[in-house]
């Protein structure tokens, strides 16, 4: 059986720079896959390739064994690929409720469905009290959760999370990991998550894909990654082992 989402030999070149080189990523149905690597390793570029914002220079992207390399982001969203952004990108002048409704109406869903799903998503993420607040008036940590709620409203089959805990403190970070776990349990979707917080990623993911300078360094279970000498020297450092 084909994996849920896969890239085959994906390379991305920006002029002379190789942002990604021959990367093969596989995401199983219902799997949480961590994507880690030092700054500039190509993690966000790979997420952009998966969500359709970056056309690979060579290689293919497949969803359920079907080639989707040439599909633009809206088409991929309609096929069930949903993403969040490192810089959140909420609709600033819309309420939290409306932000979530966009995820349903954006794909051609009905207004009533949108209202209902937004309400559920906000309840799941404990945001229902902020439903009528404008997104721009929210504190940063809450904005991140709204970003997640919005992606959740789309009821995706694949959820791509770009540093969901960036800029959050330790407590918020742990809560975010718990939230991702809960969403995953509820939707049963495949999740790809980029994160710098290694402790969080190793605790959260079924498998981890390590990138370094645009190439795949290692793919394995959190236990394998934690003890891999090459990964440790390239990226994790001493603190991760401790």
């Amino acid at each position: 059986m084909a994996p849920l989402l896969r890239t085959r030999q994906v390379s991305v070149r920006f002029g002379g720079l190789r942002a990604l080189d021959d990367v093969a990523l596989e995401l199983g149905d219902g799997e949480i896959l961590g994507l880690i690597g030092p700054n500039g390793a190509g993690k966000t570029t790979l997420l952009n390739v998966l969500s359709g914002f970056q056309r690979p220079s060579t290689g293919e992207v497949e969803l359920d064994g079907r080639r989707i390399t040439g599909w633009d982001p809206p088409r991929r969203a309609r096929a069930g690929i949903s993403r969040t952004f490192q810089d959140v990108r909420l609709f600033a002048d819309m309420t939290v409720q409306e932000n979530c409704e966009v995820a349903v109406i954006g794909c051609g869903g009905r207004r009533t469905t949108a209202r209902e799903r937004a309400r559920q998503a906000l309840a799941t993420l404990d945001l229902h009290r902020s439903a009528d607040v404008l997104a721009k008036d929210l504190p940063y940590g809450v904005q991140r959760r709204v970003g997640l709620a919005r992606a959740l409203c789309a009821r995706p089959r694949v959820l791509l999370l770009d540093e969901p805990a960036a800029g959050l403190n330790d407590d918020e970070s742990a809560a975010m990991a718990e939230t991702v776990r809960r969403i995953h349990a509820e939707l049963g979707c495949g999740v790809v998550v980029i994160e710098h917080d290694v402790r969080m990623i190793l605790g959260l993911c079924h498998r981890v894909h390590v990138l370094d300078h645009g190439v795949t360094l290692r793919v394995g279970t959190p236990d394998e990654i934690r003890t891999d000498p090459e990964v440790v020297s390239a990226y994790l450092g001493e603190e991760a082992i401790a």
Partner: protein
Amino acid sequence: MTRRIAPGLLCTLLVLAVSGLALLGPETTQRTTTQMLVMGVISLGTYVFVGNSGVLSFGHVVFVAVGAYGTALMTMEPALKRALLPDLPGPLTDLHLGLAAALPVAGLLALVVSVVCSPLVLRLDGMAAGIASLALLISVGVVIGNWDQVTRGSQGIVGIPADLSIGSALPWLVAAIVVALAYQLSSSGFRLRASREDAVAAASLGIRVRRERSIALVISAFVCGVGGGMYAHFLGALTPGDVSLRLTLLTLLMLIVGGIRSLSGAVIGTIFISVLAEVLRRIEAGGDLGPVTLAPHPGVQQVILALTLLLTLLLRPGGITRGRELGWKLLRTGT
């Protein structure tokens, strides 16, 4: 539902109140008010696209121009057309419609032009889109200025029935409010407003931004075309200068001062600038103003209007309404 249509109701009431007051006034006031109602339709038409998409357009007066000349050719006396425009195709010369019948046709003509233009303009974003729309406006201006068989070029068309009054303009403005409100409450309008806030995030949620923009553009062009037809019947004569950059700037002035991101802003801006322009016009002309006698101040209108725009952009960039709708407080606390 009542709460969602509240801005439309309140804007309509506002327009009715201002028009009612004007009917009590002298004929010059009534004429200025009629012009205000025409500008209201043009501003609302422009707002449907610019306000909801966040893409600035200098080109919407193209649709006004198409509507204006189109209406003129449909409603003028055939005998007059034969004399002024001998090279006009026969069926068009013989066509003689009333204003009410001609305006929807004028809207459709503008709509067709927008369908032709949209692939050119909608590929662009931000500054580039603004400049491209300006280029379009200038090109169409040149065509109007030289197409002697149809527009009589720079000589212009005269003898258009100048029969627009407050009473005959008002229903069209109310209709424009209804259309603008219906679009902004529709799913397409909702998607377009999301893309205005963040086009990248919108695309990631399934929104085909260019498609939503073309829907808004087509509706917007229709309303502007109707506004153009009304403008022709307000003026009674048309020259290329009537539908040029000057009108574009006046429309944008109204939208920006009122608040370009809301329907209420378009309506309030139109009323505010119309009243201000009229007061300034009287000061400019000088003479006997009730208790005081004023010397003429030529140019004061232009200067003050320009300053109004400048001060709005500096001190209250969201305009008078700051992108909110009338009745917004009700929307908030009503639940």
